[in-house]
């Protein structure tokens, strides 16, 4: 069982809380009450389970990646295949849960923010399923990077609003979604897509993703003879897929929990999204947490090849467990992530999302240092179809040419040397 956190003020130790304008305070409190009511209600739980099984495609497989294991020559690598879910990522677990809750609360309109587009697509999907109006805010830079997902959302009946302010990425999309929510709070529920924001979001999103960890542990016990891996790895933007997996192992002290942040293109502020190595305690989007910011408390822009990790703050619960030394945070650069993308494609026939490729990058570094009896459990949180264009652009730039023809990246062949441009 996870610790009874957060406390009644929505705090994980010093982190979390409800730092929102007064207009949102009563609605946030009401949301917390509704969530606490419905999450225990049998009818609600049954409908969510049924839809997760019949519509979303749960349980997802756990897969022993034998070729990758053999190539790396160390720990056995198990992939939790959240990439196989309907809409292509773990995000649907939470989006569906929150949309069902919104319907129970009598809300007639759903809004969401999205970075890579996966949460936007998941929310648009759940809204279509339940017949609720849906508006998704997305940074214009992300719309460029993820134009297929933009069209997918539109096909699903959602209105996609481009956000042109700031860095035109996830943070700015959240700003705009919060402004919409403040304005339309009476009939609108904001489906926040990660373990961020004011209470109850961090715990609600965590709970809706708990199914990832519960399944993985059960499957691992069956396949490997023990439910506890030696290491569990997940990428961390806001941190929802990581929390989904890690929460079932928090009390199993033998399981090392490793979160992988976006190391981007270098160590300077603005070049990465590695909050744990470059961030300071601050308050952003409703929670006290670690934030990448300057000395004057202005939030920094971030960079990552992966839109879903391109965010200056991190879920407050992650910070709590980082302080306790329970979750270790490492980083993978853009270049390492793209290499991992190629590696998994070539060895296992799986295109991971660029976000999840950051977790694979850590596997590539760590697995060879472990013995062959040890087990590494990786949350493969999403699939990479959406990223093919970005990777194509990246490869072309790395070769110093244009994306005229599609040729394999050098790292698709592990024996070749990489020729990335400016990876950290």
């Amino acid at each position, binding site marked *: 069982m996870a610790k009874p956190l957060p406390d009644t003020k929505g705090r994980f130790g010093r982190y979390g809380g409800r730092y929102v*304008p*007064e207009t949102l305070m009563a609605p946030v409190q009401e949301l917390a009450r509704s969530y606490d009511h419905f999450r225990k209600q049998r009818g609600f739980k049954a409908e969510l389970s049924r839809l997760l099984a019949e519509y979303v495609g749960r349980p997802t497989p756990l897969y022993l990646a034998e070729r990758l294991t053999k190539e790396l020559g160390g720990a056995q690598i198990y992939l939790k295949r959240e990439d196989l879910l309907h809409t292509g990522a773990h995000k649907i677990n939470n989006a569906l849960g929150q949309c069902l809750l919104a319907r129970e609360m009598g809300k007639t309109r759903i809004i969401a923010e999205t970075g890579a587009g996966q949460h936007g697509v998941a929310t648009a999907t759940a809204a279509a399923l339940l017949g609720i109006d849906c508006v998704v805010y997305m940074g214009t830079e992300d719309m460029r990077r993820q134009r297929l997902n933009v069209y997918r959302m539109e096909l699903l009946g959602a209105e996609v609003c481009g956000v042109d302010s*700031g860095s035109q990425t996830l943070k700015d999309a959240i700003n705009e979604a919060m*402004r919409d929510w403040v304005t339309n709070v009476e009939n609108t529920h904001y489906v926040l897509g990660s373990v961020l924001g004011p209470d109850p979001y961090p715990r609600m999103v965590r709970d809706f993703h708990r199914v990832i960890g519960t399944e993985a542990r059960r499957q691992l016990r069956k396949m490997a003879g023990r439910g506890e891996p030696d290491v569990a790895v997940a990428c961390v933007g806001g941190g929802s897929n990581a929390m989904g997996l890690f929460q079932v192992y928090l009390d199993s002290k033998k399981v090392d929990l490793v979160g992988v942040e976006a190391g981007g293109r270098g160590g300077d502020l603005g070049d990465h999204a590695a909050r744990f190595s470059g961030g300071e305690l601050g308050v952003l989007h*409703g929670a006290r947490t670690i934030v990448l*910011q300057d000395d*004057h*408390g202005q939030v920094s822009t971030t960079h990552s090849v992966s839109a879903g990790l391109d965010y200056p703050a991190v879920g407050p619960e992650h910070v709590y467990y980082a302080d306790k030394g329970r979750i270790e945070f490492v980083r993978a650069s853009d270049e390492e992530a793209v290499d991992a993308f190629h590696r998994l494609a070539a060895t296992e026939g799986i295109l991971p999302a660029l976000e999840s490729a950051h977790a694979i990058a850590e596997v590539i570094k760590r697995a060879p240092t472990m013995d062959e009896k040890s087990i590494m459990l990786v949350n493969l949180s999403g699939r990479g179809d959406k990223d093919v264009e970005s990777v194509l652009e990246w490869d072309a730039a790395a070769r110093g040419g244009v994306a005229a023809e599609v040729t394999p990246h050098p790292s698709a062949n592990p024996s070749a040397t990489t020729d990335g441009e400016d990876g950290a």
Partner: protein
Amino acid sequence: MSLLRRKKKSPIDQVFAACRKEKRSAFIPFLVGGDPDIERSRALILALAEGGADIIELGVPFSDPIADGPTNQRAAFRALEAGTTLDALLQMTKGLKTEIATPIVLFTYYNPIHAMGPETFSERAAECGVDGVLCVDLPPDEAADELLPALRDKGIDSVFLLAPTSTRDRIKSVSQQSTGFVYYVSRSGVTGSQDGLREALVRDVRKLRKRVGLPLAVGFGIATPEQVAEVGAEADGVVVGSELVRLIERHGDDSDLAVRMRDRVAELSAPLRA
């Protein structure tokens, strides 16, 4: 009334007391500090005082202003581009206070204060003559442990928001934790003018005033002398922000910007003095 509340009257208390004597509402203009840059901003704040401001709300620019509409977002962006920091605004306030007696309330998001540290901030704000602080994203529930003790210690008024969504319990706790005045957000939404005031606003203000027990200022979406008059008939204070910020946007580079600002403030506040 909270036991923690000071007995001595603050400059903000005195303004509202004086206005009450004159049987009028206080005029409270808002500008983002450092917009379009510190030098010109300083002249504009003086112009607000000259034009008839009773209290001045000085916005601290923030990178992620979730409670602001497009006009104030752009203002914050201009100010940040010009290198404005919380530090610089405190210094600016100190300078202004040698020239004007008008109370200054900082209207800010919490993170810049958090970065400076609530104690350090309160100390320096007091030194620089800041009279009140309103933190948009720090409701009293959170402020009680973080910022309130430091502000009280330095004798700076803590102004909190109330909104149309505020419940009876929240109205009570916000009123108890506030000093100086309470700021009522006229409608659910972000800063900036819309077509008109919502129908029930004046009635809501009348009801709320009885419950709050402190002067009640009303802001968000008030942009014309007529609206000032309408709200001023019930509220203890009327805040006008985006309408003035727009002047900077339109005439930022004109040499007569400060004169225009002074005149516009005079025009907007005139109905309260009629």
